[in-house]
């Protein structure tokens, strides 16, 4: 980066229409407050990150930007910036997400075997229908509300992370893997993760944000809308705005009770999205098909609509893990209470911190990117071997006999044969005897 380039870039930033507000976050100020609690990076690194964010803003059309945190990895670390584009300036993703599907195990192989069998008897067709794919949320809503950029070190180019899909979040909940630091590294796991490390990183960032981004109560309020909560998706409100009449509470109050803090990021449902999506809303074609076939017992018409806690719920509603509360609140110092800062550490996501001091607050994450669990991680077991054919009157599937059973059967058969031969011999002998007579 030559000096000329820097000058040109700073000239660009000065041309921004909004003089007072630039999207550039004041990283040094945030670092100062977190330092009071012993959290943060060194001053040099914070400043480098500050400059790297400035470079990011000058290159991309960004409306708001925030230093989200740092995730450690095996070979390299990730510095993550949370960004919102200007409305309407978002780049359309020309390439479809490069989702690397891990080799199709399970049903695909079974179907191949079916086809390889002799064609004399047509084997019954597989009746397997893969579960419906739940679509990802639109950019700008739900789990994809923010766009994330990562770089390995301040100074390296920023890479945009792809939006997150519900399947990735659901799978990320089941695995626990270290990050290597290379975005294109494969994630080898079971259940197989649909994507590479960039997708896994994005999924973990989404989970951490949903679980630990908090603000003092009253800072954000719901925008004044005409209707009430009755919306089609039943998701409730999902937008908020800053409250111009925010009255900050004292540090002591912020620390004493957890109900003075609220989540300002929507929580992610079990489905993997923030707003419930019913995959069984059938189109007309599908309804016709179903009228012809019999209704299968497996089809759950009424999938329970999942609801999560609405936006801006206070932290006192957060469940702890076993007997550990979800958050630990401390003032930064007990000795000088008039200059103390209220600091919260998350116990569910170790490494997530938040501070509040007067009107200023911020969240940050420094850690390895995993959730805390008091029990050890147990990987999911592979599913049981599936039957090749459904049990019908013509075809049933039973277990193969074991060696002992086969031997026993053989012995019994031979014994029966021997007994039959003996009887015949006796009869022959009797006949001979009769003839002799």
């Amino acid at each position: 980066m030559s000096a000329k380039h820097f000058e040109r870039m700073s000239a660009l930033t000065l041309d921004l229409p909004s003089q007072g507000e630039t999207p550039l976050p004041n990283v040094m100020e945030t670092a100062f407050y977190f330092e009071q609690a012993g959290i943060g990076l060194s001053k040099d690194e914070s400043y480098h990150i500050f400059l790297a964010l400035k470079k990011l803003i000058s290159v991309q059309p960004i409306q708001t930007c925030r230093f989200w945190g740092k995730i450690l990895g095996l070979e390299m670390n990730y510095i993550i910036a949370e960004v919102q584009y200007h409305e309407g300036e978002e780049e359309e993703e020309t390439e479809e997400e490069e989702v690397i599907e891990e080799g199709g195990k399970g049903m695909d192989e079974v179907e191949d075997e079916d086809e390889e069998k002799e064609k004399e008897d047509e084997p019954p067709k597989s009746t397997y229908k893969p579960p419906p794919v739940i679509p990802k949320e639109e950019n700008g809503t739900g789990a994809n509300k923010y766009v994330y950029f990562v770089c390995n070190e301040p100074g390296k180019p920023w890479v945009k992370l792809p939006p997150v899909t519900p399947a990735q979040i659901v799978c990320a909940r089941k695995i626990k893997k270290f990050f290597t630091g290379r975005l294109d590294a494969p994630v080898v796991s079971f259940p197989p993760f649909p994507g590479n490390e960039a997708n896994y990183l994005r999924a973990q960032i989404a989970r951490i944000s949903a679980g630990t981004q908090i603000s003092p109560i009253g800072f954000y309020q719901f925008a004044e809308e005409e209707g009430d909560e009755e919306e089609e998706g039943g998701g409730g409100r999902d937008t908020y705005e800053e409250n111009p009449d925010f009255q900050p509470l004292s540090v002591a109050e912020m620390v004493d009770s957890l109900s003075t803090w609220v989540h300002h990021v929507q929580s992610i449902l079990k489905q993997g999205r923030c707003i419930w999506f019913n995959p069984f809303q059938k189109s007309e074609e599908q309804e016709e098909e179903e009228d012809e076939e019999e209704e299968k017992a497996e089809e759950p018409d009424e999938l329970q609509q999942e609801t999560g806690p609405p936006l801006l719920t206070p932290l006192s509603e957060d469940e702890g893990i076993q007997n550990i509360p979800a958050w630990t609140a401390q003032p930064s110092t007990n000795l000088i209470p008039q200059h103390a800062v209220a600091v919260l550490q998350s116990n569910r996501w170790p490494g997530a911190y938040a501070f509040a001091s007067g009107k200023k607050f911020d969240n940050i994450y420094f850690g390895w990117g995993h959730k805390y669990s008091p029990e050890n991680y147990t990987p999911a077991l592979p599913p049981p071997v599936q039957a090749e054919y459904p049990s019908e009157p013509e075809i049933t599937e039973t277990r193969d006999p074991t060696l002992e059973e086969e031997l026993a059967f053989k012995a019994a058969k031979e014994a029966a044969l021997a007994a039959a031969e003996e009887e015949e011999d006796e009869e022959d002998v009797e006949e001979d005897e009769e003839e002799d007579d």
Partner: protein
Amino acid sequence: MVAQAEQLKGRFQGDPSFEYEYTEINAEDAERLIEDGKEPMIKEEVRLVATIEQIDRAVGIIPRGAFVKTPLGSVHENRNFEGLSVMEAKKLSSYFHFTEPVNLKNKTLLEKADLDPSTDFLDSLEHDIPQGSWTVQLEKGGTVVVLRSLLWLGLTFYHVPMTKQYGYIYFGSGEKNLDLPFMM
């Protein structure tokens, strides 16, 4: 004491006098303790001391050459230690565990012939199980090498190559990362 405290799981409370109920011991120990008139409880300060000892023993490391062993057997600091070179600093074999060596006697004679008995009298990090339980990174533009342990998440060791500066520190929750093999 360490063996007993190892069985306690979960986060530390923050209160040194907090008593843990010690529920996972053999029946014999329980009977013995009850006969003594004491209930099976462990204080957090005991657990804290045991955890510190465990961490030091398992992942306390020093660069090669920082300590020397005299022919008489005593070990002390090497005042002539000038630091590792940059190339050496990136290799795991240049760092040793600062505890009684366990693997040294298992080396073949050929390997032992290459060792320098004054500096190579400890276990190196290369043969740690599971392999890859240390991450080596260069920070600050390549002037500082930082090793992080994955077994005890939060243990960080730093060394500035070509200088005498090195050290390790632990910031964490005091729990061993037993999921390490799944996470690699």
